[in-house]
C-alpha cells in the first residue's frame, strides 16, 4: 500500500514536535527521534511528563501544536475523515483502564476492532462475516481467552480484560501497537501475562510496540530501547544494551519545579 515506505525507513518519526494544551500546559517540547520498524520501545517518565500525550500524537487522538509526526513517511496531520480512520486502523491502542464496553460480550468487544473494515450500516446491524468471526476466535486464542468468548466483559478480571483489549487491537491487523500504562492496574502475575503477550506480538508478528511504563524494572526486562521524558522533553534515549539503572534514575529526578 505504502509505495514511499521502504523496510529500512523508520515507521514513526518525530520532527520538532511541540504540544501546548489549550490551557497553556506544555505537553511536549521539541521532540525529535525515529522509531525503527519492529522495535519494542518503552517510554518512561514521572507522572505528568507527557508520556500519554506523546503516544496519542501518533494516532492523532491528540493534535500537535507544531512540528511533524510521520507514520510510514507520511505526516499524520494531513489526514482527515476516512484517511484518518485508515491511519488509526493500522495502529492498535491499549489503555490503562482497558476501555472495553463492560455490558457487551467479549466477542462483541473483539469484533469492534474490525469496524473500520466495514461500512457503518453493517457495523450497526452486527453483520460480520463468518471469516471475521473465526478471526475473533483466533485472536482470543492468541491471548488464551477462548473460554470467555461469550462472557460479558465485566465478568472478567482486570488481566483478562486487558487481554481482550489486546485481541481487539489484533483484529485491526495493526503495524503498530501503542500501550499507555497497560499494566498499571494489574497484579504482578497478570502483569507478566500482558507484557509477555505484547512481547510475543512484537517478536512473532513484527508489530512495532510502544509502551508507557512507570516501572523501570519492567522497562529493562522487555524493551529494545528506552526513552525518557521529563516535563515534555526527551531527556533519555538508549538502546537496551547501553541502559544503566543509574542513568535511568536520572530521568526520575525532579527539578525544583515538579
Amino acid at each position: 500500500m505504502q509505495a514511499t515506505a521502504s523496510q529500512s525507513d523508520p515507521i514513526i518519526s518525530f520532527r520538532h514536535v511541540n504540544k501546548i494544551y489549550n490551557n497553556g500546559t506544555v505537553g511536549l517540547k521539541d521532540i525529535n527521534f525515529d522509531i525503527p520498524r519492529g522495535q519494542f520501545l518503552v517510554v518512561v517518565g514521572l507522572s505528568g511528563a507527557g508520556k500519554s500525550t506523546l503516544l496519542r500524537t501518533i494516532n492523532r487522538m491528540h493534535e500537535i501544536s507544531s512540528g511533524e509526526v510521520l507514520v510510514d513517511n507520511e505526516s499524520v496531520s494531513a489526514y482527515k475523515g476516512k484517511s484518518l480512520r485508515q491511519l488509526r486502523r493500522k495502529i492498535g491502542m491499549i489503555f490503562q483502564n482497558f476501555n472495553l464496553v463492560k455490558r457487551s460480550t467479549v466477542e462483541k468487544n473483539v469484533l469492534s476492532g474490525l469496524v473500520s473494515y466495514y461500512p457503518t450500516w453493517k457495523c450497526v446491524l452486527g453483520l460480520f462475516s463468518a471469516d471475521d468471526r473465526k478471526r475473533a476466535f483466533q485472536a482470543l486464542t492468541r491471548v488464551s481467552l477462548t473460554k470467555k468468548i461469550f462472557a460479558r466483559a465485566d465478568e472478567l478480571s482486570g488481566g483478562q480484560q486487558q487481554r481482550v483489549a489486546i485481541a481487539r487491537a489484533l483484529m485491526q491487523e495493526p503495524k503498530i501497537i501503542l500501550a499507555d500504562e497497560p499494566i498499571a492496574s494489574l497484579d504482578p502475575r497478570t502483569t507478566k501475562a500482558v507484557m509477555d503477550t505484547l512481547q510475543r506480538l512484537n517478536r512473532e508478528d513484527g508489530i512495532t510496540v510502544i509502551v508507557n511504563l512507570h516501572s523501570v524494572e519492567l522497562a529493562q526486562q522487555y524493551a529494545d530501547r528506552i526513552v525518557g521524558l521529563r516535563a515534555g522533553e526527551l531527556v533519555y534515549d538508549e538502546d537496551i544494551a547501553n541502559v544503566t539503572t543509574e542513568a535511568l534514575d536520572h530521568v526520575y529526578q525532579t527539578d525544583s519545579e515538579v
Partner: protein
Amino acid sequence: MSYPEMPQRPWSQRHHVRAIVWTLVLIILLALSSWATGADFGMFLANLDQFTVLLVQMAHPAWDYLSVIIQPLYETIQMAILGTTIGAAFAIPFSILAAHNLVSNKYLRGLIRFVLDLVRTLPDLLLAAIFVAVFGIGSTAGVVTLAIFSFGMVSKLFYEVIETIDMGPLEAMKSVGASKITIIWYAVLPQVLNQFVSYFLYTLEINVRASTVLGYLGAGGIGVYLQRSLDQFNYSATAMIILATLVVVMVIDGVSNHLRRVLL
C-alpha cells in the same frame, strides 16, 4: 472532669417566636388571597351537603358500566404507549446532540437544548387543546400531545444519562478508526440502554395517568367517558371509571417498577 456549662437557648427560640410569626403570616396571606380572588368561604360551607350527595352516589359504583369502559380504557393505554414510544424515538437523536461529552460544538448543543427547553415549557393541557382543535376530537390528538410531552421530558433525562457514561470505550472505538455513528452504537448505547428503557417506562406511567385527563379535553380514551358521566351527574358511573383507571394505573406502575428494578 468538668464539662463546660450548656449554653442557654436564646429568648426567641425558647418561645417559638419564629413558628408563631410564620403561622400568622400564612393566615394573613391566605385571608388576603381569598379576598383578592373573591373565593367565598361561606359558600364552600353552605354547599358542603352537595358534596355529601356526590360522595354517597360515588360510594355505589355502577359495576355493569365496566363493560362499556373497557374499550376506551384499552384505547387510553394504547395512546400512552404509542405517544411515549414516538416521543422517546425522537428523543434519542436529540439527546445525543445535546450531550456535552458527545458534541463539542457548543452552539449546536445550545440550540438543541433551547429547543428542548421550549418544548418542555409547553403544558400538556395546552398541547391537547391545540391538537384537538387541529385533529378534531379523538385519540390522534391524544397521541400527538403525549408524543410531544414525552419527547421534551425524555430528551432531558436521556442526555443527562449520556453525560454520566464512561468515556473510555469511546476513546477506544475512536482509536480503532470507527466512524461517529459506529462509536455511538458500540460505545454509547450499550452503556445507556438500560437507563433509557427505565426512563421510558417511567414516562409511560406518567402518560397513562396524563392521558385520562387529556381525554377530558376530547383527546380520546377514557377521559371522554369521564367527562360525559360528570356532565350527566351520573356519579356512580364516574366512580366506576375512577376505580377502573386506578386499577390500570396501579398495574402499569407495578409492572414498570418491577421491570425497572430488574434492569438496573
